[in-house]
């Protein structure tokens, strides 16, 4: 199948290993600008590692990563990380209030986040505005995930890397977040890369999908591929024989 689109991130023969153990093997492929690509695959497949490469938190051992037609190394790391924003799988918080966490992306640049904007962000992710001055250690796992998403949006990234951002959310909250991300994608043309364990979610929200296993990309294409996979391993994964 041939897909024609403008790639915003292109990877060619990307390898990454840790202390001699290969974690990503010869990854080649691209992500279309302005679209939503979902990434699925069993635990340990290397999905998070791929995101960390795209955000510049780590560099590949070999191979090339191109962001907007420029090699990733040519970007200033801080600028790159603001443009290619990541919501980490762990939804890590800095100690302090929700407001402090939401303003972090701006306070790192010596700027302030207006209180109205902070409340707006809370509303967007479906959190009550009275949480603004709550200490993050008193939040539930799901609430933290929502704060983490809102915080990533503060930098208004061109590309959003979302790593399992709805894993601790109830069904309604999950749909709220899906709607929000869909809106961000439409309104600002933000490219979305979304890792999820939920295959139904991968199918419904994704335009395109990558299936990864054991450090390799096994299948890519329009998300409907999840309905009729060709690779035997992907079939088994979708049936739920793996993990």
């Amino acid at each position, binding site marked *: 199948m041939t897909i024609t689109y403008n790639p915003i991130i292109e990877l060619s023969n990307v390898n990454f290993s*840790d202390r001699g153990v290969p974690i990503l093997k010869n990854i080649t492929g691209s992500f279309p600008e302005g679209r939503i690509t979902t990434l699925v695959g069993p635990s340990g497949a290397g999905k998070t590692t791929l995101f960390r490469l795209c*955000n*510049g*938190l*780590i*560099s590949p051992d070999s191979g090339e990563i191109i962001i907007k037609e420029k090699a990733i*190394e040519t970007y200033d*790391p*801080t*600028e790159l*990380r*603001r443009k290619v*924003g*990541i919501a*980490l799988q*762990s939804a*890590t*918080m*800095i100690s302090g209030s929700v407001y402090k966490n939401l303003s*972090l*992306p701006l306070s*790192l*640049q010596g700027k302030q986040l207006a209180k109205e904007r902070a409340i707006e962000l809370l509303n967007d992710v479906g959190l009550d505005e009275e949480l603004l001055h709550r200490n993050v250690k008193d939040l539930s796992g799901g609430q933290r995930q929502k704060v983490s998403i809102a*915080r*990533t949006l503060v*930098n208004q990234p061109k590309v959003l890397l979302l790593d399992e951002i709805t894993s601790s959310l109830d069904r309604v909250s999950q749909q709220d977040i899906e709607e929000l991300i869909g809106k961000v994608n439409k309104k600002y043309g933000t490219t979305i890369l979304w890792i999820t364990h939920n295959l139904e979610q991968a199918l419904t929200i994704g335009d395109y999908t990558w299936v990864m296993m054991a450090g390799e990309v096994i299948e890519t294409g329009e998300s409907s591929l999840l309905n009729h996979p060709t690779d035997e391993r992907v079939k088994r994964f979708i049936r739920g024989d793996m993990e």
Partner: protein
Amino acid sequence: MSYLTLSLALIFVLIPIILSKTLHLGLEKDTVSATVRSIIQLLAVGYILQFVFDSEHIIYIILMILLMIIAATQNARKKGASIKGITWKLVATYVFVEILTQGILLGFNITPATAQYIIPISGMMIGNSMVLSILFLNRFTSEVEANQDETELILSLGGTPKQAIHRQLITSIQASTIPTIESQKTIGLVQLPGMMSGQIMAGADPVQAVQFQLLILFLLLTAAVVTSAMLGFLSYPSLFNERMQMLKIRRKDELNSH
């Protein structure tokens, strides 16, 4: 004091050994080795000092200070083995503390420029600086390791390495200097500082001994804060590469296996 009376002092070594044996504390070996080492090291230092004082030559003074710095570096570097180039960072810190304190003391004529003053004060400064650097490195490496997630979060949002490590750095500087500052608050109330006690026993005027002790205390304060802060700001950049990525810190257990 004669060597005969000094040898009677070994009774104070026998007491812990006997206690350790009867209570199975397992401290005998360490006690004996600590005793033997302290006898040899201090006697050697005594004779060397006598030689240096007699010759009054600047070269010997500098040599002694260098020796102190080398010994202090040897001692402290193990604690910071996960930090690249820690040896030179320690040397730079000790040299700076030494030059700063002696520079002020000699520059303002607070103490005379003789070996008799320079060497013991340098010993106290470098010794204290060493203890502080060990405290700092212990705390800093464990803070960094325990808060990698936070560091990575800040980097991922476009923060610089300095911003990403700032909280851990400040916490470690504070934690390592607090004991020095706190102990000064109760000094004289709970215990008389060793140097002052020694001077008084050797027949010095107590008020003069106190004045001198105060000078030392203030110097130690400077040494403590300067050591932690300088070592901190020298150390943190080596935790990152030029792409502002956090380098994998080699954990202590991995280091020991080599």
